[in-house]
């Protein structure tokens, strides 16, 4: 099967003599393991023997799920102040904008009222600069964020009358 995009960019990480793009992290720490990798293991795995003070397992699981949901959405993560990708890469282009936005967010969040919910409602309007900054910030709508129920600006094609027609095939099923 020929798939144009696939043949366009040949994809093997093997450089020369089969040196993979190996990331050797955990022990030697030449490169720190990614946060996602660490959380996966540290929160979910390891020896579990309840301590005197420990978060009950149900809570930990909820936490893990929550973290996954949160960090699965860049916008949401930014709301929560997770921005390690901004700090430790050279992606400095949108940085100031983002920083300013965060200040605004912080102010919003600090305002009386439920912890973070207002920020979610607030974000969409303020988002354009940040969206431009993150190259492929997909609309985060798919991620479960209750507070973001307010309709977001959709790309025009979406929800147009053409779409139902396209759904005659397996259109709608692709996710």
């Amino acid at each position, binding site marked *: 099967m020929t798939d144009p995009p696939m043949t366009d960019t040949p994809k093997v*990480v093997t450089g020369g003599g089969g040196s993979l793009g190996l990331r050797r992290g955990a022990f030697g720490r030449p490169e720190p393991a990614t946060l996602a990798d660490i959380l996966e293991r540290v929160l979910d795995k390891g*020896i579990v023997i309840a301590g005197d003070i420990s978060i009950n397992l149900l809570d*930990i699981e909820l936490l893990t799920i929550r973290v996954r949901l949160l960090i699965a959405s860049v916008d949401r993560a930014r709301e929560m102040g997770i921005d390690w990708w901004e700090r430790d890469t050279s992606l400095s282009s949108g940085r100031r904008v983002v920083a300013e936005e965060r200040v605004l967010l912080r102010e919003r969040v600090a305002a009386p009222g439920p912890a973070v919910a207002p920020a979610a409602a607030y974000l969409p309007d303020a988002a354009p600069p940040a969206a431009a900054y993150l190259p492929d910030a997909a609309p985060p709508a798919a991620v479960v964020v209750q507070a973001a129920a307010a309709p977001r600006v959709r790309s025009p094609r979406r929800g147009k009358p053409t779409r139902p027609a396209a759904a005659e095939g397996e259109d709608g099923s692709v996710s």
Partner: protein
Amino acid sequence: VSETSGTWIYAVVPPGDPESLGSGILAGVRGVAGEQVRILAGAAVAAVVGTVDLAQFGEESLQRRLADLDWLELAARAHHEVIAAVAEAGPALPWRFATVYRGDERVAGLLGDRGAELATTLRRLADSTEWGVKAYLEDEPADPGAGDGAGGAGGAADGADGEPDPASGPPERPGTAYLFRRRARMSAREDLSRRAQAGADEIHAVLADLADAALLYAPQDQQLSGRTGLMVLNASYLVPHSRGDDFAAAVAELADEYPVLQLELTGPWPPYSFIEPDRPAGSPEAGP
């Protein structure tokens, strides 16, 4: 030492020679509270611990801080760093994050009660390390909205490459042509991802065969992984030291064999994922 401090456990290690571990490997290692990490010796096993302030690591405050993701990141990394440092020096059982006891005596009690069992697990894992393998389908069409359905992204891609349509009748009307093109693209994409998934399953089978145990994690979100590609495999393998090189070589070979996929090997990790015994290798318990 007093009512106000607690003992955070990082890992359990064999009892032998804890002092050298303490003065050597652990000398410069700081824990989740920035504290000096130390060894608590027991008869069957020793624990790697740190003293934390219960004002900050008590039940309530801990719970609260866990919701602070900035803090969580730092603490999770610190916890992992301690475990990794210890595991680099020898066998170690990683402890679940955020387990705190009311003082060393309580930990000593634990080491007494559960020491034998922990020693057994230590022995089981002593000669192995954990390796992580991920596979990405890098060649997703330029479609940033892949996770979100085809919405605006399909339209954008359309304008972008405007390739002539393979096999789908004369495009007499733009709308129809668009739909045909779109469908062709979609089935190509579906086919690609089906093949990618099949490849991932095969890769997992091969690697699980080389390993003593295997565990499938859920694939990570694209934005989280920081990769443009779709993650189709996220697995951990427990590999005996003696087969470590073979394992890495196998991953390299598989990368050649499956050019559609990009493989990433991480590790060696402390054996986080294999604390529970007898996870049969090669039997995925959760399809990615």
